[in-house]
C-alpha cells in the first residue's frame, strides 16, 4: 500500500512537470513559427495540454469541480482552431 501510494505521488509530480514542459515547448513553436499553420497547430496543442494540466490538478486535489472547466476549454479550443484556419483559408470567418 505504501509503495503504491508513493508511486502514484511520484507519477503525478512527474506528469505535472512533463506536461508543463510540453506547454513551454509548444509555446516555443508558437513564437518561432515560421508558417501560420505551425502557429495554429501549436496553439491547438497548448489547448490540449491545458486540458491535461486541469485534469491532473483535479486528480491531485481529489475534487471534480474542474471537470466543467476542462470541457469548456476543449470546446473553445476546437472552435478557435477552426476559426483561425478558416480566416487564413477564406479571409473571413463567417461569410
Amino acid at each position, binding site marked *: 500500500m505504501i509503495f503504491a501510494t508513493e508511486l502514484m505521488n511520484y507519477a503525478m509530480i512527474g506528469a505535472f512537470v512533463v506536461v508543463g514542459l510540453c506547454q513551454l515547448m509548444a509555446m516555443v513553436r508558437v513564437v518561432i513559427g515560421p*508558417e501560420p*499553420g505551425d502557429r*495554429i497547430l*501549436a496553439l491547438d496543442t497548448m489547448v490540449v495540454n491545458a486540458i491535461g494540466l486541469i*485534469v491532473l490538478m483535479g*486528480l491531485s486535489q481529489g475534487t471534480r469541480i474542474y471537470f466543467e472547466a476542462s470541457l469548456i476549454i*476543449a470546446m473553445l479550443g476546437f472552435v478557435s482552431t477552426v476559426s483561425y484556419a478558416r480566416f*487564413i483559408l477564406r479571409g473571413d470567418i463567417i461569410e
Partner: protein
Amino acid sequence: MTYEIIALYAVSFCLIVGAAFTLVGAIGLLKFNDPMTRLHAPTKVGTVGVGALLLASIIYNGVFGDGAVQELLIMGFLFVTAPISANFIAKVNMHRRACETPPDLPAGEEWATYDLPASDIDVLDDKSTSA
C-alpha cells in the same frame, strides 16, 4: 485492500503513459522540419496523451471517489474534433504552399483546396490588379 493497490498501480501506469505521449508529441512539434511532418506529432497528445490522463482520473474517482465517468465526455469530444482540426491545418498548409505540391491529378480535375469558385478568382484578380 488489494483492489485499491491494483487501482493505484493502474492510475500510476496511466499517468506515466499519458505524460510520455505528451512529451513525444511536444518533441515532435519542436524538432520536425516540415510543416506537414509537424502536423503528425501532436495528434498523439490529443488522443493517447490526454486520453490516458483522463483514464487515470476515471479509475481514481471510480475506486476512491463516488465513481462518475464524466471524463468520457471530454475524451469523446477530443477524439471527434482532432481529425477535423488536423484537416483544417493541413488545408492551411496547402493553401499557403508551405508543403510540397500534392501529386498531379488527371486532366480536368483539381485538388479541392486549390479549386476556387469563379467569383473568388474574380475577387483575387481585382485585388492583384488594384494592388
